[in-house]
């Protein structure tokens, strides 16, 4: 069986890499067209950006700034994500509490968090703390609602089966509710993490002396579109790395799930 399946899978993957390369070529062509039409002053050329990117990597400048942004995004994702997962689990048996909180959670979810960035900077200063606060505010609500949905969608019969076998409330939460909600929790983080990275970059744009957002802002102030593009490229790569990491983690944690419809297949 593996004799047949392996080359098929391999050729599929190869085919997808070719498709990706084709899309990149199209993007670069359109980009070059824009550079040619508007001039390098307004739209830096792909080649110049590539050279600058390599230079900034070599000097360590890009990685240093990316490191700041990544630290802010990671800290914010943890500080916002962990309570967002725990809260629906703890409130499972307290629907009244969930109902009381609901309008405020909806408000927090819907509020334009990026508009709070200046406020966070006033409160927490121009250091990392204000950026982390913004990432927390973005990640928390997305993950909260995703987890809540997962907890509510849980098959009540599984809980009942565990109770009949003598599982305590705490054991039900840990052994049934949490693993049952993992797919929904992942769906939440999948949306929240790229938003979180973007939030960190935007907070840096507004006021910071380091980070990828600072590089973007600095480049724009000096009319250096090449620098802006290089920093944005780095931010995009960060998002890709984070998504790749989540896919790997998800594939490991959700081995028990039946294979998804190939049409829906995403990630590596």
């Amino acid at each position, binding site marked *: 069986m593996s004799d047949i399946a392996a080359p098929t899978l391999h050729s599929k993957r190869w085919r997808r890499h070719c498709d990706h390369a084709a899309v990149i070529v199209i993007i670069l062509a359109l980009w070059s067209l824009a550079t040619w039409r508007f001039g390098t002053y307004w739209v830096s050329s792909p080649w110049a950006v590539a050279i600058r990117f390599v230079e900034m990597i070599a000097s360590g400048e890009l990685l240093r700034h990316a490191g700041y942004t990544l630290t802010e995004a990671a800290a914010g994702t943890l500080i916002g994500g962990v309570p967002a997962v725990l809260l629906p689990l703890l409130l499972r048996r307290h629907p009244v509490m969930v109902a009381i909180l609901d309008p405020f959670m909806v408000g927090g979810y819907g509020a334009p968090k990026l508009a709070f960035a200046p406020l966070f900077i006033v409160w927490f200063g121009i250091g990392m703390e204000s950026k982390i606060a913004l990432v927390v505010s973005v990640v928390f609500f997305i993950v909260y609602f995703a987890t809540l949905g997962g907890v509510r969608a849980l098959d009540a019969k599984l809980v009942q089966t*565990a109770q*009949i076998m003598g599982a305590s409330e705490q054991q039900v939460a840990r052994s049934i509710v949490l693993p049952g909600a993992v797919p929904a929790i992942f769906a939440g983080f999948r949306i929240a993490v790229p938003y979180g990275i973007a939030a960190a970059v935007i907070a840096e744009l507004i006021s910071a002396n380091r980070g990828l957002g600072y590089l973007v802002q600095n480049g724009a102030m000096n009319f250096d579109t090449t620098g802006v593009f290089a920093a944005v490229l780095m931010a995009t790569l960060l998002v890709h790395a984070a998504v790749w990491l989540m896919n790997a983690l998800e594939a490991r944690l959700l081995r028990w799930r039946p294979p998804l419809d190939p049409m829906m297949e995403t990630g590596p």
Partner: protein
Amino acid sequence: MTALLEIRQLGKRFATRAGRAPSPWVIQDLSFSVAEGEFLTIVGPSGSGKSTLLNIIAQTDTATAGDVLFRGTPVTTRDPRALKPGLERRIGYVTQDDNLLPWRSTLDNVLFALEVQGTLDQASRARAMTLIHAVGLAGFEHYYPHELSGGMRKRTALIRTLVYDPPIILMDEPFAAVDAQTRTQLQADLLRLWDLGRKTVIFVTHDIAEAIALGDRALVLSKQPSCIAAEHMIPIPRPRNVSDIFALPGFAATYEKIRAAVQ
């Protein structure tokens, strides 16, 4: 000698929704008892409240009237919040759906009850492995439920209740959703396992042949509101060969009597 489990004048009606006529009695004045080590089968047409009856015994639902007595002590409650599902691990329940935990392998599903009860040790783990071998699941210990066939899932669901050895096991048409051949195999497996321990079993089914093949005694439920319409001892000696149960002396006569009572 007191019965292990006694059901006394049990009644059940579901809560009436506002603005509707009072809901009818699903079960009314239903009484029977089960002795230690007895394999009791209950036959009834669909909609005769068989699952409701087992849910009340397993304490996942409340009774509206009457009592359930465990070793002579009433254990019934009318308050849904005071229910004790599985009544302190003394009542095992094999439901119609296998309800396996999809994120646990076969072995981990079988060990689940031992884990939550804090009784997982070398001895109980060995017992779990013995049961896995006894029902032909050896080699599939590390498969996830979605990778197993319907019959394998049923076997896993069965032995994960047997492994923690509750004094009473309730079974709610556990083999209803599998094909006829697999069902015969599962029935044979069940009888073989039961012969090893002679647990008290209450097995609910709508299949008269199954009720005869498995039970020491068969109760027939009436249509709603259901109560016991008839009781038949099953004269077929054990061990029984499930695959040619139809040919055994006593089968045809018992079948006819039960069929007449079911209608």
